[in-house]
């Protein structure tokens, strides 16, 4: 010990200390990071880390116990899927108060999101994050059947091609283009914000995969009839016909009537 104390002013002492710190961090990381390898320990660790993230980033609105306050809902029982959707699409943490939380920049790494989700899932039973196979439209997803389910259950808000639409008082159903299959699945499972829940019993996981297959097919599909005009339908087509078409006709009529110079 005295030898160590004597050398603490050695010019290389700082370097050694930094190296030591790096090694310790690396070893700890190697032990703790692959949390899924050692099931129980890793999960408990995720919950602890998730709780730390929650207290630092979410508790100011949702409360230190996640039981909700004023306008922020209780998170007890919302499940990991809800956290993965809300935080994974950048809707949470909320950027500003408004009619609804818009999709925005994602603030956390996938690892942090799964830690947050593990913490919230530990508060009460709720829907978990679906596995990649469960949401993969290639896993038996039938776009045609999905279209029929989508038209009855989703199209009135999200538009028949998933392009979104208006709700009351500034709220809206978002455009679904570019949304990952996991997030679409989670949204149906958890009913974020204004959207209702579509349970696995009424819209089965197979139905949900069919819907995802339909949305992905529509997203990639070219529009053979000409410009899609945002797939909004007759309103947009009427607007173009009246503004562009009529303006062109009036222009032609004025030209026909004008004298040549």
């Amino acid at each position, binding site marked *: 010990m005295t030898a160590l104390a004597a050398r603490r002013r050695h010019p290389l002492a700082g370097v050694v200390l930094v190296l030591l710190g790096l090694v310790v961090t690396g070893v700890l990381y190697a032990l703790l990071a692959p949390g899924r390898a050692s099931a129980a320990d890793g999960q408990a660790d995720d919950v602890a880390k998730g709780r730390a993230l929650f207290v630092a980033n979410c508790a100011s609105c949702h409360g230190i116990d996640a039981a909700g306050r004023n306008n922020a809902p209780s998170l007890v029982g919302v499940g990991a899927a809800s956290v993965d959707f809300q935080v994974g699409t950048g809707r949470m943490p909320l950027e500003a108060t408004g009619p609804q939380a818009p999709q925005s920049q994602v603030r956390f790494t996938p690892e942090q999101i799964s830690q947050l989700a593990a913490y919230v899932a530990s508060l009460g039973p709720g829907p978990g994050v679906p596995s990649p196979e469960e949401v993969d439209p290639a896993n038996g997803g039938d776009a045609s059947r999905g279209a029929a389910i989508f038209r009855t259950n989703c199209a*009135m808000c999200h538009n028949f091609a998933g392009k979104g639409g208006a709700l009351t008082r500034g709220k809206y159903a978002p455009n679904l283009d570019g949304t990952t299959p996991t997030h679409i699945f989670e949204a149906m499972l958890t009913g974020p914000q*204004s959207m*209702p*829940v579509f349970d696995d*019993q009424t819209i089965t996981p197979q139905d949900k995969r069919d819907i995802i297959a339909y949305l992905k097919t529509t997203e990639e599909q070219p529009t*053979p009839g000409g410009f899609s005009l945002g797939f909004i339908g007759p309103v947009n087509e009427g607007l173009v016909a009246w503004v562009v078409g009529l303006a062109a006709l009036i222009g032609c009529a004025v030209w026909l009537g004008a004298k040549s110079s």
Partner: protein
Amino acid sequence: MSGHTPAPPGASGREVVPADRAGALPERFENPGLPAHRLRMGDVDPKAARRAERQVATLFGLSAIGTLITIVVYFTVKFDTPMSFVEHLSRLRISTTGIGLGLTLALFGIGAGAVHWAKTLMPDEERVEDRHLLRGSDADRDDAVTILKEGASESGLGRRPLIRNSLIGALALVPLPAVALLRDTGPMPGNSLSTTFWKSGMRLLTDPQLQPIRPADMRVGSVAHIVPEGLDKAPDYLEEKAKAAVLLLRLDPGDLDPKSQPGAYEGIVAYSKICTHMGCPVALYEQQTHQLLCPCHQSTFDVTQDCKVIFGPAKRALPQLAITVDADGYLVAKHGFTEAVGPSFWERG
């Protein structure tokens, strides 16, 4: 130019207002005649005329190019080899767009060229041609009157009352078949507007999967779109579905209005999906506000107030379908709707 009317007498052709009557309207406006003819650039400058000629030729040339584009696109974009559906659609898009643009150019080029030709190069002097008199000559008018009189006397209507009276009778009867035919244009609706497919004990099935539902399948905040059991076998399926479609929602039982409690099951309520305004499907459910919005005219119904109208043109609340569970634990209708669903009609009262 023999037809060219010279400017009318009075130099400018304008009414000259005497100084003492300045500001007052003249008794009568004189015909101002045609404005002085203005020569176009092409009339005075041969260069401009040649330029206009080239422009017209260019427009006709563009038309020819458009025709070629149409033909080339039609024959080069091929659909005869096997290809994926998406590939087929993208080729279809190229073909449609190319043919459309080509034909537009071909037709518009000819039209625009012809108009430009007429406006810049063809003679543009104004001509006046008087209309001929509309009144016929006296001799023609007398002839016409004579013919009418002769016809009337030759038909003998005045002399043969039997023919006249039987003709009047036949003309009076002729509209009667129309009354009989119009009466039979369709069966009267009877009570079909007041009734739906729902009967007591009918299971609630999801639309379009047609699966029965247990109360435990619905979490708070969830919705399901519902049709009655057996509807898919109904002969007039679409007419029946248009009346029987139902939205099933689960709320916290404490949120429900006491009026809707008797027809609810553990916070699960079923309401007609057909708007009471114009019959659109009211299915835009906002889970947090518990409001149902109709996409057609923005009528808004509050599920926590027994689907009372809180905004928009609808006048009546959405009818509730009373539900319960059967012996197997599946949700069923307690009885059919107790009032007519959908928009108002004459006999509804």
